[in-house]
């Protein structure tokens, strides 16, 4: 085990539950507690909880905060109401992705919270500082001061309202948040998630994170590892940075143009405009194959003549849909729905076709 691996505040809880642990994004993280299938189904049918304390929290404050965030972020920050959350990306000038993230418009004027991927915290913070010159705002990486638990599933609202005592959870719409307290310390109650189900993400101090975890556990909420976090987000058609978004895979290639407002200025805009007008070679698609064999990341995608035209980025035998499906990055001319394509799995070639990337019908709070 590398000595450089970081631990989240919930590490002792994972040990206590005898979770199967593995390095992820520089942290020692739980992959599963019982089984990926059981945890996956708990989130789809009842409620599960995830340790997402490894995620990064970067606060931007000052008179120039709005203009700065709008400069580095693909989505439109101007006009956000306090308590509103937006998903989007930070891009390089060539349209490649630095990271995908959430922007929280805080209740204090001129305050924003940016929640970024654990693996990218240092890179993102450096990128932000590099591009902050001339903007009148301060940047603060407080990632180590915050724990985070995601409570996800159809019973999440009931658990957060009744078990944790936050009835205001019932009033929150999807992609909004409110401020609350736990033992006198700030708790951010956010109606967001990464599973395709209704749910919340709770940000609070590391000590309070541990207490809340124990309360949820005692109430029968299923502890869920990163294993099912991936199967759940995949079924819901959500990208994972490193697989479906990267310096080489732009939001336009990944089919996420709706989160890029091309009528405003931001880093990477010109490249994305050109890509939108046709200057891309590859696009991310969904593919379903007619077999139980499982397409995995890195497996080649070939056309009906056997010529290689793409590569799988994530694939599973879907737990909720009982089908073998994947995301794949393929040459643009093969990206239309129903295009026949084949996937090479070990020594065999399995026929399939292009389908919509949102494999599972999501159940978000309206």
């Amino acid at each position, binding site marked *: 085990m590398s000595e450089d691996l970081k631990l989240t505040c919930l590490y002792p809880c994972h040990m206590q539950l005898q979770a199967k642990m593995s390095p992820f994004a520089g942290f020692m993280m739980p*992959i599963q507690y019982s089984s990926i299938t059981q945890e996956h189904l708990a989130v789809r049918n009842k409620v599960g909880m995830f340790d997402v304390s490894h995620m990064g929290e970067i606060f931007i404050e000052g008179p120039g905060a709005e203009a700065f965030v709008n400069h580095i972020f693909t989505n439109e920050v101007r006009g956000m109401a306090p308590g509103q959350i937006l998903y989007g990306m930070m891009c390089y000038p060539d349209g490649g992705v630095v990271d995908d993230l959430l922007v929280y418009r805080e209740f204090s004027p001129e305050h924003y919270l940016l929640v970024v991927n654990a693996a990218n915290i240092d890179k993102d913070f450096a990128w932000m500082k590099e591009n902050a010159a001339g903007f009148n705002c301060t940047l603060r990486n407080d990632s180590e001061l915050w724990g985070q638990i995601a409570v996800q599933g159809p019973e999440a609202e009931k658990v957060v309202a009744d078990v944790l005592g936050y009835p205001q959870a019932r009033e929150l719409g999807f992609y909004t948040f409110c401020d609350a307290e736990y033992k006198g310390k700030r708790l951010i109650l956010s109606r967001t998630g990464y599973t395709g189900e209704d749910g919340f993400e709770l940000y609070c101090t590391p000590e309070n994170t541990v207490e809340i975890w124990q309360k949820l556990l005692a109430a029968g909420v299923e502890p869920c590892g990163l294993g099912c976090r991936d199967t759940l987000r995949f079924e819901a058609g959500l990208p994972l940075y490193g697989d479906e978004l990267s310096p080489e895979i732009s939001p336009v290639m990944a089919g996420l143009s709706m989160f890029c407002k091309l009528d405003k200025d931001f880093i990477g805009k010109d490249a994305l405009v050109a890509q939108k007008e046709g200057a891309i070679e590859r696009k991310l698609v969904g593919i379903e194959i007619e077999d139980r064999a499982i397409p995995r990341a890195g497996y080649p995608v070939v056309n009906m003549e056997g010529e290689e035209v793409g590569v799988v980025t994530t694939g599973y035998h879907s737990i909720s849909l009982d089908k073998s499906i994947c995301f794949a990055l393929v040459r643009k001319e093969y990206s239309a729905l129903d295009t026949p394509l084949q996937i090479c799995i070990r020594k065999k070639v399995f026929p399939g076709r292009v389908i919509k990337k949102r494999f599972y019908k999501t159940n978000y709070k309206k």
Partner: protein
Amino acid sequence: MSKIMEGLLYSESHEWVKVEGNIAVIGVSDFAQKEMGDITYVDMPEVDDEVAAGEEFGALESVKAASDLIAPVSGVVVEVNSDLEDAPEAINEDAFAAWIIKVEMSDKAELDALMDAAAYKAHIGE
């Protein structure tokens, strides 16, 4: 603790072999199925395919990962357990009952390179 069956032979890559005359019945150990977690697919060869000792003959797939199946002996596949196509979880339920393939051995001396139950127990550190 994993279950280990007496009277079988084991490979370092966690396949078990039950010898029935010239036929080797091949499966994976209880230790292997536990390591894999929920098995969702078994990629098997076809009858009459040749397999070679030490080489891959198929794969087990769990939700998260694929793991190659390595032939403990060489020979020709005479039967595959087609029940596993629809019920791969049978391996999780009882790894020693859920055989995967039967091979007519071409060189029974290859069996000498395999471990008995006691040696395999030591190999997995239990």
